[in-house]
């Protein structure tokens, strides 16, 4: 609704001229007059306005005089028109606005001394600005505070009914969890239906509330805004890499706030395509792990079988001595390293340098191996750029978005807001291919609820449909007739009958999806965990590349194939070379020229490429005794991988296990030395988000206990091993990276690579394309018959990896229920109710677990959050290792379920 959508990229807005306070101003026809006024730098008070949503027009503050009109008009809901003569100042307007402020104060509790917003309150500002001095009319509403929600408290005595909270939730986030309600004679904000608020808890409503009516349960009454030190940094949870402000008092994080705020209410609506400034529940409420008492305060060393505290010097010496010893005795390849993609670019770079130069091994890997590396490798192979091709603006302005295997609102909430904007403002058609009824599927124009595990088959169907419906972009295919012929031939072997049988999607729906995608001028494919972390992930991504190629979407502006990541710096981890197959800058380790260049720069010889090992190979070599020492930075393979990987045996056989972490993780309990590391709030550095933006993190507080930043520890170890590094800060490392990878630090700008399929289509393509269009139905049908339930491990909105389970706020919102999520009909059929125990049996074993109904689950599928191991559902998973990329697949299996 409303006036604003002058944001439609299809429509060129007509330029007009109008006069504001005697100055001639140019603007676009039909946009909000208020926006035009504020674009000239004039700030007219506005208490119900925020540029991120359509004007609400309720507060009566934004009054201006328009020539020809007797009475003042509300500029937010008025449209700018050619020739308008507008006056924004004057005593009459001042008095009128003052009246509006007085009205608010007439029913305000004026409990400023105990209000969280004191000193950061638009009502205070406006009262001051308009010289309201007489409060004789103030009356109390005496509404009891609504503290029923887990996260937000509503003090409706303070509410000025500006509606900003409701509008941001409804318009921007499309969650629509709040409403006005007249209760006890007063208009109040309540959760829909006056229930306890239970929503996505992004807290954007809290951010835009201009007074202290909505408060944060985790920080209420703990501060006065002016006591807080505000540090702008990047969130360390998911790959969205949101900017946020960590606000600290002494050594305590008090709250996290977002750039979205009632304070930042002026802006250009079309700019929200780059992000609206909000953050999600994890960013806003998941900060308490930082100063958690469970944080490691001091290094630990194993003495007489027990981990005991030790001074840093002793711990580092011991690590260095033992590594040197093992290297001398068994050679460098007796040592390996794993690192988390939550480390900074500088640390990831340093890690691989430590492994490759100081130790001399290529046995190193990061958590990008759990899936993102599939995307990097496939994109490298197909188009020569190992990263997502699109930024948020592309997504927002796309006309068609094909989302495959992505529970986007849960895994990457802010990227999902871009897709929502695409739906709401730009009227995009969104095709969601998934086997769960996700939130984004509910908003999509074309939800395709495929049978579990058949996303890949559906994509095959799309490719076939594009070819057979003749939706191909002949310009794109004509350049590579041979490649296209092979693809045609491969696809011809597939039958639509078996595709529709395997996916459960009718043929006309497949055709419709194909034509929507093919015919859209700007179309993007976004694939995520349901593709990259499931069997044949690498090949499925290549099929998506095929689809993009034959429809002409490779290289066309605003089009592309894109992904999102679970951990913030998975892209950075690959870019920095924390993978056995890549040197920094994704230079293949086998590339002689690149090897030469880095060898020279580092003044060292590089380890032979063929001896490299990925995560699972490293664990295997630990088990068989080849590897004797393992250095783990922030990773927790024991808690992540299923039992069948026998991680425990691998760790137990080691001569030296060094774990560097914030917490004493399951893995760290087996360590010989544990080194306490700083969180992202205690150090400097950069992350690379999924758009390829290199974003800064800034130190917000002193390190907890004696913990040190990872880069600091790694520098010390490398130097101890004789590889003299003289980094005194992350900036020194940055300088080195800048020299080796010019342009990598892009000052937070999205990276728009130019995908070029030429090399692939003209060379290796024909040889491998057939393999990925093999019919897969028979195998699937067979397992489905024997084990009728699809069991998936996946992410919840409220958590990220295992890290967030250390944040009390997030655990309050989403504790481990220890229950398997199931479809309600299935439960009914099996005679189950919430909490009933079932026996889940897979090829790997069986487990008894309670169940709970979940609206997102389709019949025949069940889900357990991967963040929790109690009960250890993950141990029911078989592990399959991708033959191309070494990615271990263990998020999905078939099972039988019986009531016990």
């Amino acid at each position, binding site marked *: *609704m409303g006036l604003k959508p002058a944001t439609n990229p299809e429509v060129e807005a007509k330029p007009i001229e109008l006069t504001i306070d005697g100055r001639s101003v140019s603007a676009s026809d039909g946009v909000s007059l208020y926006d035009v006024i504020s674009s000239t730098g004039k700030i007219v008070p506005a208490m119900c306005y925020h540029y991120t949503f359509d004007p609400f027009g*309720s*507060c*009566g503050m934004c009054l201006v005089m328009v020539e020809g009109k007797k009475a003042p008009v509300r500029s937010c809901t008025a449209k700018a028109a050619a020739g308008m003569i507008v006056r924004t100042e004057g005593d009459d307007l001042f008095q009128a606005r003052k009246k*509006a402020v007085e009205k608010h104060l007439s*029913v305000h509790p004026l409990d400023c001394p105990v209000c969280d917003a004191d000193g950061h309150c638009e009502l205070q500002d406006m009262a001051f600005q308009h010289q309201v001095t007489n409060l004789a009319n103030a009356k109390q509403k005496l509404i009891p505070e609504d503290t029923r929600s887990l996260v937000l408290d509503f003090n409706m005595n303070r509410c000025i*009914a500006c509606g900003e909270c409701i509008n941001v939730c409804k318009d921007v986030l499309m969650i629509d969890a709040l*409403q006005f309600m*007249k209760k006890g004679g*007063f208009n109040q904000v309540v959760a829909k239906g006056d229930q306890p608020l239970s929503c996505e808890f992004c807290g954007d409503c809290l951010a835009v509330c201009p007074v202290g009516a909505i408060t944060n349960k985790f920080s209420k009454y703990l501060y006065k805004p002016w006591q807080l030190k505000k540090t702008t940094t990047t969130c360390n949870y998911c790959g969205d890499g949101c900017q946020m402000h960590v606000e600290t008092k002494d050594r305590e994080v008090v709250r996290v706030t977002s750039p979205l705020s009632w304070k930042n209410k002026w802006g250009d609506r079309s700019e929200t395509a780059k992000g609206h400034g909000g953050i999600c529940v994890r960013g806003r409420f998941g900060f308490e792990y930082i100063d958690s008492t469970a944080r490691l305060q001091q290094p630990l060393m194993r003495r007489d079988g027990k981990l005991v505290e030790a001074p840093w010097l002793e711990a580092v010496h011991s690590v260095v001595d033992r590594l040197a010893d093992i290297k001398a005795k068994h050679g460098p390849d007796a040592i390996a390293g794993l690192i988390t993609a939550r480390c900074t670019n500088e640390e990831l770079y340093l890690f691989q340098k430590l492994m490759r130069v100081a130790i001399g091994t290529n046995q190193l890997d990061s958590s990008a191996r759990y899936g993102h590396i599939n995307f990097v490798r496939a994109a490298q192979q197909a188009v020569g750029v190992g990263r997502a091709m699109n930024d948020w603006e592309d997504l927002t302005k796309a006309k068609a978005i094909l989302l495959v295997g992505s529970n986007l609102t849960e895994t990457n909430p802010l990227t999902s807001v871009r897709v929502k904007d695409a739906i709401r403002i730009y009227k995009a058609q969104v095709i969601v291919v998934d086997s769960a009824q996700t939130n984004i599927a509910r908003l999509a124009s074309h939800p395709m609820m495929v049978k579990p595990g058949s996303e890949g088959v559906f994509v095959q169907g799309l490719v076939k449909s594009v070819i057979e419906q003749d939706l191909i972009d002949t310009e794109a295919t004509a350049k590579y007739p041979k490649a296209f012929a092979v693809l045609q031939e491969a696809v011809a072997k597939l039958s639509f009958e078996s595709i529709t049988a395997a996916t459960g999607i009718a043929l006309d729906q497949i055709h419709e999806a194909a034509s929507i995608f093919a015919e859209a001028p700007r179309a993007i494919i976004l694939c995520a965990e349901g593709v990259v972390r499931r069997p044949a992930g690498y090949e499925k991504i290549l099929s998506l590349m095929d689809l993009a190629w034959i429809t002409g979407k490779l290289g066309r502006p605003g089009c592309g194939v894109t992904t999102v990541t679970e951990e913030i710096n998975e892209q950075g981890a690959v870019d920095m070379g924390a993978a056995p197959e890549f040197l920094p800058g994704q230079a293949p380790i086998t590339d002689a020229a690149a090897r030469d260049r880095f060898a020279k720069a580092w003044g060292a010889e590089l380890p032979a490429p063929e001896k490299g090992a990925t995560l699972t190979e490293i664990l295997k070599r630990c088990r068989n005794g080849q590897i004797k020492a393992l250095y783990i930075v922030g990773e927790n393979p024991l808690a992540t991988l299923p039992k069948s990987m026998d991680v425990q045996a691998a760790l137990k056989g080691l001569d030296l296990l060094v774990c560097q972490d914030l917490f004493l993780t399951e893995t760290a309990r087996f360590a010989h030395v544990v080194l306490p590391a700083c969180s992202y709030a205690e150090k400097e550095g950069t992350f690379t988000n999924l758009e390829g933006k290199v974003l800064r993190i800034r130190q917000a507080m002193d390190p907890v206990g004696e913990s040190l930043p990872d880069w600091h520890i790694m520098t010390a170890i490398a130097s101890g091993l004789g590889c003299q590094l003289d980094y005194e800060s992350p900036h020194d490392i940055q300088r080195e990276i800048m020299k080796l990878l010019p342009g990598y630090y892009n000052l937070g700008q999205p990276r728009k690579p130019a995908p070029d399929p030429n090399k692939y289509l003209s060379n290796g393509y024909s040889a491998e394309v057939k393999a990925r269009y093999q019919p897969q139905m028979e195998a699937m049908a067979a397992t489905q018959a024997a084990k009728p339930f699809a069991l998936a491990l996946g992410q919840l909105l409220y958590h990220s990896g295992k890290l967030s389970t250390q944040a009390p706020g997030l655990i309050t919102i989403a504790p481990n229920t220890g229950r398997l999520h199931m479809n309600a009909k299935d439960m009914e059929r099996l005679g189950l109710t919430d909490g009933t125990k079932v026996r889940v049996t897979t090829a790997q074993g069986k487990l008894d677990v309670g169940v709970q109904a979940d609206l997102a689950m389709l019949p025949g599928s069940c889900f357990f959050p991967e963040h929790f191991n109690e009960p250890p559902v993950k141990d029911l998973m078989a592990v399959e290792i991708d033959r191309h990329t070494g990615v271990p697949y263990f998020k999905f299996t078939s099972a039988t379920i019986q009531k016990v």
Partner: protein
Amino acid sequence: MPPFEKILLKNMETPGYTGSLADYERGGGYQALRKVLGKIPPAEITETVKKSGLRGRGGAGFPTGVKWGFLPKDYQGPKYLCCNADESEPGTFKDRQLIERDPHQMIEGMLLACYAIGVETAYIYIRGEFVLGAQILERALAEARMAGYVGQNILGARTSINIWVHRGAGAYICGEETALLESLEGKRGLPRVKPPFPATHGLYNKPTVVNNVETLANLPHIINRGAEWFAAIGSPPKSSGTRIFCVSGHVKRPGNFEVPMGTTLRELIFEHAGGMRSDKPLKAIIPGGASAPFFTPEHLGVKLDFESVAQAGSMLGSGGVTVMEEGTNMVWAALRLMEFFYHESCGKCTPCREGSSWLVQTMRRIVDGRGRNSDLETLVELCQNIAGRTVCAFGDAEVAPIMSTLKYWRHEYEELIQQAAMSAPAELMMPVMGKH
């Protein structure tokens, strides 16, 4: 002027008329529908309605045919018609009678409107308290469905029109057309910012026409007897047709009276409504529902048509005429109306929400004999800061009673305040120690 013949109330005033389908058909009912369906192109109906000069009877008086013309041409996808039967304006009770006594008349009107603008789904949004009305409409719709007037392929033609009754939940604001749409969508009835107007972004964001019951009830007659016939009634060219005026208050014979537009207030009150109920003379008149500014006896000569009433400083509004005799306390009357508006403000706009509460406080103080000299200024200031500064026209409406009583009966306010000053007990005027 030719001898006047009632149009809308004619059927129901026929002795023995029950409002059943049979009765309605006997009086020529559904002939208009039969006449046009599949025979006259829809666009021609809209033209006829435009030519008839019919204007909305819901309050704003917008030309009906012109409103229909705002629907986007060649729109693919659903469009809607909503019959506004929320009639909640104090002093207005004409729609209720049209619904309860002759439901098929308005249903036929709705069918004609649907046909003209290409709507297949129409809703009657009926005031929650009209329980009987809703039952009668449901029954009438059932009859009409059985007879093939409503439903798939009506009267065997290719046109399908469904009509559904939706009951409101008792909020005055849901009579405002965009609040009505919100409520119909299942949300809280808060008015939307206009533009965009319902004609382009209405129910479920689809092109929608909202028309009042009385407006729609006129349509069968216009189709049957022609635009020229209708255009000649009343005071053409701007106020054609009749109006049903709901006369209430201190008159002998309160009730609904259908008269040609342009009839004077004097005639309406003293001839149709039988004059004042006692020997007390007339003191005040609200000519168009609670939202219309007051008139005084000097205005008895004003003709009841859109232009004349507006020129005289009020509005024809919903046709609710409330008559008050000498002795009525005008400040009290204004307070009573203000309390209604305060209660019914939806709360969206600050000026309206807080302003109405502030106005009530101030008015109550004056009426209770605790008024202050500055109060009159406060009242004016508050009113001036509500009107024109709100999302919907409620803001303009709610200040009418106070502003117009202040204009004509300011002395009554002043007297109350003076009395307050004189009779105020000493302890109110100066602080007294030791008292609690």
